[in-house]
């Protein structure tokens, strides 16, 4: 796994350098990898400070989005009125791009972290809710019959059967959430902030410090990849009974 990562990164850097040589692009359009590496070292403290802000926003957004999403999915499943009245609203709300409401959030929640956490929360809320609700709804009818015959209560059936049965589906939702949560946070920072990687990139771009902008971008990408594989690992460990489909044989 680690070796594969190293190979992928090496190949990407070589391709990058090749593009720089072939196109003869000036450094303020596409800085060569070496310059970006230097910028990363030179501005390390500054980048790490802004990165830590963005990471906190993303992680808190993930936690909030998953918690609210899980509660919503349970409420939609459990209460008919919530299903009938709230579900259409939920779907309709997805027609509204998060980008479009970013300024409104800024207005309401201010310039600081709150609005960015809200953005990340909003952008992952729907995939998490939809995935968990689907998982909870599509429990094998054989299991449900067995639970009814055995005299299960709603609570115990949820605990021992519906919820664990929904975990693989929830896992897919979480993977998507991990991949898109950084979008929410960074868009929030672009719209208005004085900290975070999104802010740093805009700021560097305005001062034509393109190498610094690329360095910030690299750190963001690295964190996003780390987050995705971290969550993927946790999901696989939790859903241990799901053997991976053997892709080679199909």
């Amino acid at each position: 796994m680690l070796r594969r990562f190293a190979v992928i990164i090496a190949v990407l850097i070589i391709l990058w350098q090749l593009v720089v040589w072939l196109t003869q692009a000036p450094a303020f359009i596409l800085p060569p990898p070496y310059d970006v590496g230097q910028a990363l070292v030179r501005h390390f403290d500054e980048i790490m400070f802004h990165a830590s802000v963005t990471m906190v926003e993303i992680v808190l957004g993930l936690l909030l989005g998953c918690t609210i999403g899980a509660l919503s999915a349970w409420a939609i499943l459990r209460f008919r009125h919530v299903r009938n009245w709230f579900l259409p609203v939920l779907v309709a709300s997805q027609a509204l791009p998060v980008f479009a409401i970013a300024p409104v959030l800024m207005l309401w929640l201010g310039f600081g972290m709150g609005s960015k956490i809200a953005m990340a929360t909003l952008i992952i809320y729907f995939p998490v809710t939809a995935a968990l609700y689907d998982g909870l709804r599509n429990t094998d009818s054989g299991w449900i019959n067995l639970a009814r015959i055995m005299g299960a209560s709603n609570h115990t059936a949820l605990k021992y059967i519906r919820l664990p049965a929904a975990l693989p589906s929830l896992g897919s939702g979480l993977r998507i959430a991990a991949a898109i949560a950084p979008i929410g946070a960074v868009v929030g920072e672009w719209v208005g902030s004085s900290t975070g990687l999104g802010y740093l990139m805009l700021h560097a771009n305005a001062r034509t410090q393109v190498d610094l902008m690329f360095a910030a971008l690299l750190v963001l990408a690295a964190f996003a990849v780390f987050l995705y594989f971290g969550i993927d690992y946790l999901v696989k460990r939790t859903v241990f009974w799901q053997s991976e489909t053997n892709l080679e044989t199909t």
Partner: protein
Amino acid sequence: MTSVALKLSLSYGNECIFEDFSLELESGKLVCLLGKSGSGKSTLLHFIAGLLPSDVARGSVVTDDEIPLGGRIAWMAQQDLLLPWLKIIDNINLGSLLRGNRTKQDRDQAQQLLKDVELEGVENRYPHELSGGMRQRVALARTLAEQRPVNLLDEPFSGLDASTRYQLQGLASRLLANRTTLLVTHDPLEALRMADQIFVLDGRPAQVASPVTPPGDPPRQLADSRMGESYTQLMHQLNHPEVNQHAA
């Protein structure tokens, strides 16, 4: 011990599947309902288990002690229905877990049942680590752990290979002895091996012919020469529905 008499009319959509149908399960006996696919045998079993919504199924199930059957049956299906996230011992104790009252006794009983189904030592494994035959043994243990007056078995061995099926039929037959059981199957040999009484289900609305009672006690050896006559009888009823209608 409970004997169960059931009478029902049942329609699904516009189709009448059972009309004034009646069947008696004698206390402590294994009754087998034999029928082709689509004969309504599985629907009947779901009705007895109370799994059909009341607007499609009208009918009554009468027990000799006049206590309703709800909460007094155990269910075993063709799929083992083991929960992949629970250890084998928790799967066997699923009933008590779902009712929120598992005790040390239940655990001990589960261990004993694992011995009975010849699977000692797998209590802390997970279902995906076991073969199909082993999993169905666990399902049998889970059914027995319920200790219910009536056991309903819906083609429990259909998914297994022939030799595993044969072993499990023998095992289940011994462990279910003296428990009121209704077994539904499409396999005449399974019926002959396990049942005290066999009813062939056929037609629309479904009827049963007079029961076939194979000689000797289950589990029977299919090589037994006396089986031939019962087998012929069953195959005749299965293939000549008009005979059933007269007999019924």
